């Protein structure tokens, strides 16, 4: 497995509380991504990073923020969790864009907002 780990793997939280998910890589890859996976919607991009302190929004960024203060860590924060944010969250890393560049995925974090 590529050196990418997500923590926590499971979390249950209450509506209105802040939540932070962590993605850690040991591959020194430039690109890091956060997706959410929901039935019928597939994988939707929340935010991504193309370098330290360089981040941008994906298609479903509302209610989420990210930070990348060092190459190896990409944090996803739900400022005030809502039930609609109950999902499985996946982190991915990629060395670069362009031909033949595979993305590697973490094992996912199952988040339940009650």
């Amino acid at each position, binding site marked *: 497995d590529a050196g990418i780990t997500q923590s926590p793997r499971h979390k249950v939280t209450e509506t209105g509380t802040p939540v932070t998910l962590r993605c850690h890589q040991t591959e020194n890859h430039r690109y890091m991504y956060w997706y959410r996976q929901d039935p019928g919607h*597939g*994988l939707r991009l929340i935010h991504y990073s*193309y370098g330290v302190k360089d981040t*941008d929004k994906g298609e479903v960024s509302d209610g989420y923020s990210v930070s990348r203060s060092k190459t190896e860590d990409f944090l996803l924060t739900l400022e005030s969790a809502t039930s609609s944010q109950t999902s499985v969250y996946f982190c991915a890393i990629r060395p670069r*864009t362009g031909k033949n560049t595979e993305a590697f995925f973490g094992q996912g974090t199952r988040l339940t907002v009650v």
Partner: protein
Amino acid sequence: AQRVTQPEKLLSVFKGAPVELKCNYSYSGSPELFWYVQYSRQRLQLLLRHISRESIKGFTADLNKGETSFHLKKPFAQEEDSAMYYCALGNTDKLIFGTGTRLQVFP
């Protein structure tokens, strides 16, 4: 804008039958397309990339620029092919996925 469309949410076939999972894309330039697979309770992993024109686990995918498609095919499905399949477009900084197709192969 970049977009990936997978029109089928579920595809059910019997073992030994041919399989075709459809993927259409929207991109103004020359696309870089991938197929990823997610087996039950496992992380997503790369299955195919169009640039290498390879066959993995009997699967192939051909880029058709005229039809803006990158369909995944296998002539004889196996039970172990049952999984979730995602088509992805990765030209720019973003890596965009389709909604996925669940393939069920019955014995």
